[in-house]
């Protein structure tokens, strides 16, 4: 992990007006990099003990933090095992425990669930969500998994070719990619019904094809009056679902705009 000297520096989260030194940056950040960096020849506890010493934690604090984190990640029973005997998911958990050990104000996690089976990945995501709230740390999550980002992150930044092209909450980014729409499956959608729908103020556009009605809504448009209107006009509704753009839709939209 190398550092480049800043060409420009604007104070942000740091109160200092001068660029922070490398050791200050490192001392303020925990990290899980692409490789977990766990020492296979050490036990689970010794891995944390080593990093606790490196971070200058006292003996009591090291022991207490080690127990807290290992219990939280369900690794307490494996504390005496050599790390090479752990599964990949357990090693990822141990590496995250290591990153959080010294209670740094910021933690960088690079693809924490990469290579895990779906069950282990879901469990780790849940642990991360709980830890993010309970430890009071800012977690920077680097991921290509947009579902994961949508579940865990309060702020999402999209980087394309080394440039930040969008930043905001998942909802803000989704909303940038168009208003929600209503998909209705059924029968009896007459031209008169479509005309009545188009006349509604919350409706932006209506299209019908193959027994499927797609109604583009203005932001925060109500859905139930529209379903009632269709039924009262003689239409039959088998299924109605309100759909919003996912973060993946937002990402693809932003990237397409960027490439255009």
């Amino acid at each position, binding site marked *: *992990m190398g550092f480049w000297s800043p060409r420009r520096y604007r104070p942000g989260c740091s109160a200092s007006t001068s660029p922070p030194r490398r*050791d200050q940056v490192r001392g303020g950040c925990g*990290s899980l990099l692409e*490789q977990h960096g766990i*020492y296979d020849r050490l036990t689970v506890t010794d891995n944390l003990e080593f990093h606790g010493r*490196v971070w200058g934690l006292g003996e009591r604090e090291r022991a207490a933090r080690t127990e807290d984190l290992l219990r939280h990640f369900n690794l307490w029973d494996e504390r005496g095992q050599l790390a090479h005997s752990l599964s990949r998911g357990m090693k990822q958990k141990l590496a995250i425990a290591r990153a959080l050990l010294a209670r740094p104000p910021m933690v960088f996690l690079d693809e924490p669930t990469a290579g895990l089976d779906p069950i282990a990945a879901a469990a780790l995501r849940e642990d991360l969500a709980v830890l993010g709230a309970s430890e009071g740390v800012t977690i920077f999550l680097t991921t290509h998994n947009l579902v994961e980002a949508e579940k865990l992150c309060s702020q999402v930044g999209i980087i394309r070719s080394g440039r930040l092209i969008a930043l905001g909450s998942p909802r803000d980014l989704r909303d940038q990619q168009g208003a929600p729409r209503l998909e209705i499956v059924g029968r009896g959608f007459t031209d008169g019904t479509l005309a009545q729908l188009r006349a509604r103020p919350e409706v932006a556009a209506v299209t019908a094809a193959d027994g499927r009605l797609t109604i583009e809504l203005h932001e925060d448009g109500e859905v139930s009056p529209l379903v009632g209107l269709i039924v009262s006009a003689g239409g039959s509704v088998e299924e109605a679902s309100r759909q919003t753009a996912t973060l993946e839709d937002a990402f693809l939209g932003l990237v397409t705009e960027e490439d255009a």
Partner: protein
Amino acid sequence: MWVTTAWPVVMWVFLTVIPSALFSAESFAGERERRTLESLLATPISDRGILLGKIGAAVSISWLAGLAIPVIGLITANIADWQGAFRFYPILTIVSGLVLSALMIVFVVTLGSMTSMRASIVQDAAMTLTSP
């Protein structure tokens, strides 16, 4: 007669090159090979601290391992040619051996750590160090 010659010191100093080269070749290339180097570099320890720590550890271990050379030589000489009393090295031989082997180890370990920093695997570092 055997223990009063300069040979024990010469052997002691030159044989310490082997553990020094092996331990120092492992220092950075070993971390890189096991993919733990990046995590180590992300800790609050400065780059200089990591380098000095690696050199210090390799020097200490090599110097302690080097002590086995005169001890084994002495035991072998006494068993092979027992003359009724245990023979020991003169104090000047011991002091010379300790100092000269330490200097040799510092030189080899520093060279080895520099080589290890640029090697991708331990074997490459060891080959570079031991190739004529």
